[in-house]
């Protein structure tokens, strides 16, 4: 809402020295978001005067038509001689009154005016357009032609009210009353402790039976309808300068006198109005719901198909207006240029159901000045005053005659009252204001207040947002100043810190970052096509996705079921930007619907939902487990003066999973697998024991070459993805401290030859079990294949360390344990001791 300061001063006697910025500060403190204060005419300096065009000489031979004019500016130029001015505009004629800026003047934008040679003539000033004067669009499309009554030589800065301040206020959804000068003036009056001259306090004649007939068949949608008639309007009458200027400053374009007046009254009082050309309205005006599919053309020329919920204004033929949103083309006021100008009008000032208007405006994507106000709440009591004000202005400015008939259809309603303890605002604020202050503040906003310890508060008709005791508390607290609230701290019960799960999530992030991975937070939006490129089959659960009705991009309408699309995209982007050695990680939710989720039920809000109802809502949601994933490419270790580097490979990906598992105190079981999007020969399935059962928790390895090609990834890129929720559940709780033996260690190395297809993990498991409890640690230190072993065989070399807790082991004891280990490995995996 744009509020010209000069206009506002009509209703509140603000101190003359008070600037727009001063007012801004006060209004912001009491709750109006004044975003900017525009300084109109800043830097503007005269002489800027009314002139009359005496002669026009068309100059030939230039690329565009140019006029050389003489203009009478009276004594403003000091000589009284006609002023010679070159002008490129054409929308004026000899005898027209125009605005002339003379040499020595400065126009907005630091535009200094001097006599200058142009088009072979000397131009002593300029004939001005609205734009050049910083007035905004006046619809003239050229220079300003003034009404003839203004005298030559008159100061145009004053005449056109070019210097002003305009406050731009972002009005919140609850404060429809502040979409008017009246509402903002009330706030200003309260902020300064000054009286308000309420423009809605007008003498209004009592309703009678002679007014234009109105029939409301939908009182739920329209609880008030005032109709007034003005006849004998002069269709030639134009809006006076003051009216046009106020509309312009408030951000509206002057159109025609009748329309300008309704807009002016709406800005002043907040009541949207509509003027119908009476000669085009047939029969009584009605208010009803539209018929489903009914067709109607609004003022903007759009043909609309109506919904049965839309509220319409009708005459005998059908709809003539989309109630509270926009009038119809069929009863539009004709402006003065038309062949048959409008002479008789019917004024509508009505009050409509905010919800109904909001739905209609949204349904038809048609937000108008009227609908904006009705949605946020309009003072129903202001309707008759607004109609009266409109009538008065039409009579005054268009020479019309007010018809004595006054129609008012009003559905009975009681004013809204709220009861609250007088100290309720104190309790909400944590400040002792006292009853007196509370009552005074509530009265200032227009409430009637009765009672002592318990207050009965009748809220004013212009504040439909005041419904609950807390709404009234807010009024008191904001007017007493939010800035005066003290700073106190509550005392929450002693806390327990982060949960185990939250600690784990942080540890996982730190551990991966410590291992050289950089976290990337990717959007979870994916396309089905990408899942296809990852080689994930149609029947894979990862292909069942949550889809959005209104995705950001139609290309990516689904939510991720795996972290990899986003991470791989980040990998590709980094690679494209010249970073080729990459290790990225992300943790976050993936969305795994079954596809059979029921619809979420609409639950009431006036009570706590039952546990069953909550469970019902939760059942409508997809499973949303937290995953962690890494992707790698390029060098894991850089080459440098210390020697060679090492490329990232499948083993790094598997190790990233182990890094995560270690943080959770979980030992991963790793097995070979074939699983998209991984290389079938370089893919590890990761298992953990969850709730007593070995459970698949993730995969790691090198990506499938086809996937790398399809997604344009660097060769040999690797990836790992793991379900953190499952890993967390596999955790075994507090670690049991190991017993540290100080007896000497006995080391035994063994090399075992097995079939190449035997997983090292199986051999290791057998060795550990066979070695028994004397085994302290075991490490695979070499894998060897070669001709001497034979085709399809490999040798695994292990270092076994034995130690007892209570004695020094003898060589025989250590050897016996080793032999037992080898024996079990032989039995389980066919391992043969090398060289044996």
């Amino acid at each position, binding site marked *: 809402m744009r509020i010209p300061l000069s206009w506002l001063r009509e209703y509140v006697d603000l101190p003359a020295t008070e600037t727009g910025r001063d007012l801004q500060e006060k209004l912001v403190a009491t709750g109006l978001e004044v975003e900017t204060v525009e300084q109109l005419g800043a830097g503007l300096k005269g002489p800027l005067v009314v002139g009359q065009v005496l002669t026009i000489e068309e100059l030939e031979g230039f690329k565009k038509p140019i006029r050389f004019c003489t203009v009478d500016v009276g004594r403003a130029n000091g000589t009284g001689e006609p002023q010679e001015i070159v002008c490129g505009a054409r929308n004026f004629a000899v005898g027209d009154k125009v605005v002339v800026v003379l040499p020595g003047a400065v126009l907005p934008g630091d535009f200094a005016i001097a006599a200058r040679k142009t088009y072979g003539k000397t131009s002593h000033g300029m004939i001005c357009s609205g734009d050049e004067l910083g007035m905004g669009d006046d619809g003239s499309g050229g220079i300003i032609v003034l009404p003839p009554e203004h005298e030559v030589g008159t100061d145009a800065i004053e005449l056109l009210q070019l210097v002003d301040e305009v406050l731009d206020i972002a009005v919140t959804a609850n404060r429809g009353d502040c979409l008017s000068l009246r509402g903002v003036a009330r706030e200003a009056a309260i902020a300064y402790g000054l009286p308000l001259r309420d423009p809605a306090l007008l003498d209004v004649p009592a309703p009678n039976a002679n007014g234009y007939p109105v029939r409301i068949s939908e009182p739920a949608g329209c609880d008030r309808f005032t109709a007034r008639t003005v006849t004998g309007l002069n269709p030639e009458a134009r809006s006076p300068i003051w009216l046009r200027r106020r509309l312009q400053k408030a951000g509206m374009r002057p159109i025609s006198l009748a329309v300008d007046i309704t807009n002016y009254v709406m800005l002043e009082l907040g009541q949207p109005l509509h003027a119908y050309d009476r000669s085009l309205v047939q029969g009584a005006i009605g208010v009803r719901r539209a018929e489903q599919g009914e067709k109607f053309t609004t003022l903007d020329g759009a043909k609309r198909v109506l919904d049965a919920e839309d509220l319409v204004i009708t005459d005998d033929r059908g709809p003539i207006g989309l109630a509270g949103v926009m009038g119809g083309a069929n009863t539009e006021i004709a402006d003065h240029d038309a062949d048959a100008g409008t002479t008789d009008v019917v004024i509508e000032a009505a009050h409509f159901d905010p919800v109904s208007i909001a739905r209609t405006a949204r349904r038809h994507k048609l937000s108008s000045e009227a609908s904006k106000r009705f949605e946020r709440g309009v003072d129903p009591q202001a309707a008759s005053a607004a109609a009266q004000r409109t009538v008065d202005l039409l009579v005054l400015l268009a020479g019309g005659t007010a018809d004595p008939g006054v129609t008012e259809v009003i559905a009975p309603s009681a004013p809204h009252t709220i009861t609250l303890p007088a100290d309720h605002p104190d309790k909400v604020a944590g400040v002792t204001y006292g009853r007196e202050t509370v009552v005074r503040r509530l009265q200032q906003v227009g409430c009637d207040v009765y009672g002592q310890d318990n207050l009965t508060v009748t809220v004013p008709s212009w504040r439909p947002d005041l419904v609950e005791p807390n709404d009234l508390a807010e009024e008191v607290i904001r007017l007493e100043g939010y800035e005066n609230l003290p700073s106190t701290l509550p005392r929450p*019960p002693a806390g327990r810190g982060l949960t185990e799960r939250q600690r784990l999530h942080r540890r996982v992030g730190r551990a991966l970052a410590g291992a050289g991975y950089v976290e990337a937070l990717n959007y979870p939006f994916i396309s089905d096509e990408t899942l296809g490129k990852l080689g994930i089959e149609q029947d894979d659960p990862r292909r069942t996705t949550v889809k959005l009705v209104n995705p950001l991009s139609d290309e990516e309408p689904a939510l991720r079921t795996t972290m990899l699309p986003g991470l791989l995209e980040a990998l590709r982007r980094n690679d494209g930007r010249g970073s080729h050695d990459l290790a990225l990680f992300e943790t976050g939710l993936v969305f795994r619907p079954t596809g059979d989720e029921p*619809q979420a039920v609409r639950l009431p809000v006036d009570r706590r939902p039952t546990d069953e109802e909550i469970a019902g809502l939760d059942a409508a949601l997809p499973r949303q487990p937290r995953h962690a994933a890494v992707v790698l490419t390029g060098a894991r270790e*850089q080459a*440098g003066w210390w020697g060679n580097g090492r490329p990232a490979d499948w083993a790094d990906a598997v190790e990233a999973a182990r890094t995560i598992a270690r943080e959770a105190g979980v030992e991963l079981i790793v097995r070979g697998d074939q699983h998209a999007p991984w290389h079938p020969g370089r893919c590890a399935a990761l298992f953990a024991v969850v709730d007593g059962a070995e459970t698949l928790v993730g995969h790691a390895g090198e990506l499938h070459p086809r996937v790398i090609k399809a997604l344009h990834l660097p060769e040999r890129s690797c990836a790992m993805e793991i379900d953190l929720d499952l890993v967390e559940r596999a955790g075994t709780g507090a670690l049991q401290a190991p017993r540290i033996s100080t007896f000497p260690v006995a080391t035994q190395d063994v090399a075992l030859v097995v079939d190449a297809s035997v997983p090292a993990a199986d051999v290791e498991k057998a060795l550990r079990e066979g070695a028994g409890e004397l085994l302290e640690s075991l490490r695979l230190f070499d894998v060897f294949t070669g001709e001497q072993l034979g085709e399809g065989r490999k040798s695994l070399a292990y270092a076994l360390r034995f130690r007892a807790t209570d004695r020094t082991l003898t060589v025989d004891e250590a050897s016996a344990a080793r032999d037992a280990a080898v024996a079990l490995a032989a039995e389980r995996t066919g391992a043969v001791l090398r060289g044996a």
Partner: protein
Amino acid sequence: MSAPNKSYDPVEVEALKPEEIERMRDEALAAFAAADSLGALQEAKVAHTGGTSPLSLANREIGALPPQAKAEAGKRVGMARGAVSKALAARQSELEAERDARVLVEEAVDVTLPYDRTPAGARHPLTTLSERIEDVFVAMGYEVAEGPEVEAEWFNFDALNIGPDHPARGMQDTFFVEGPKGRETESNVVLRTHTSPVQVRSMLDREPPVYVICPGRVYRSDELDATHTPVFMQVELLAVDEGLTMSDLKGTLDHMVQALFGEGMKTRLRPNFFPFTEPSAEMDMVCYVCRGESVGNPDRPCRTCSSEGWIELGGCGMVNPKVLTAAGIDPEKYSGFAFGFGIERMLMFRHNVEDMRDMVEGDIRFTRPFGMEI
């Protein structure tokens, strides 16, 4: 024990003459001093202290002396050998020190060589900033609460007093989840637009008092540009207890900005409107860079707050009693306050990030410098 040799004449034993012993000693000392390497010293050591060295041979001769002469000769030879051995040890350590100094010099390396064998990793600054904020409140006794990102509309809207006709439910802000075929728009499930549904779930899960901090990812259907992202991180706070006031809210906010931006920081509340709080306020914090001193001071403009003196943080207020009712908490007995703000904006002004896209694109050049903590 053999009988003493009575016919012994010390004068006749040349090697035991005092001058002779002195000469041997001096020769040894000279040889040690002349040895310029540990090898040469070793040779001199063999020559002058070895079994066949003159002093050793002389020592052997003592046994042949008559008893009366033994003591004197023994003493003389012993003293000489002592001096020789001492000189040897001194020279030995001298030469070793010289050798060590030389070897250490030879072993010197260029310690300015760079070492980026395994480049460092890093956590995303949004993650670490969120954790830092969480920690401020965890230290005060709050719990960290989390919830689903795909959420039922009832939790995201209805329970928060955002009725079916509230503009925030319109298509312009919210991502709606598709329902089954034929009823695509009727799932009543959305991508949460704030972490407030976690507040509702927290109230349903717990008996009051409730003190929770709700960080997490939220979604609004804005296009990505330098100052907007459709997916962003929020931190919200909810406190529900007996007798909580707006002053408590103010104090909690003040405490937060002091913990995050240093002593002397404060917040400002400006009246505003949100359906889920009443009274409601917009919260600003004093610009932590200029502390408000750039206001009206064109000589010292402040980039961080555009010389406004205040930085907008987010929204807050007293929990609307209707929200408490929907969550099963008696608004007659309990009151609450809540606030919420986006982490991206805070990261932008706290670390001078100019373009929000840098936070979402995962470029390692942006993230790596932030390290493990923020």
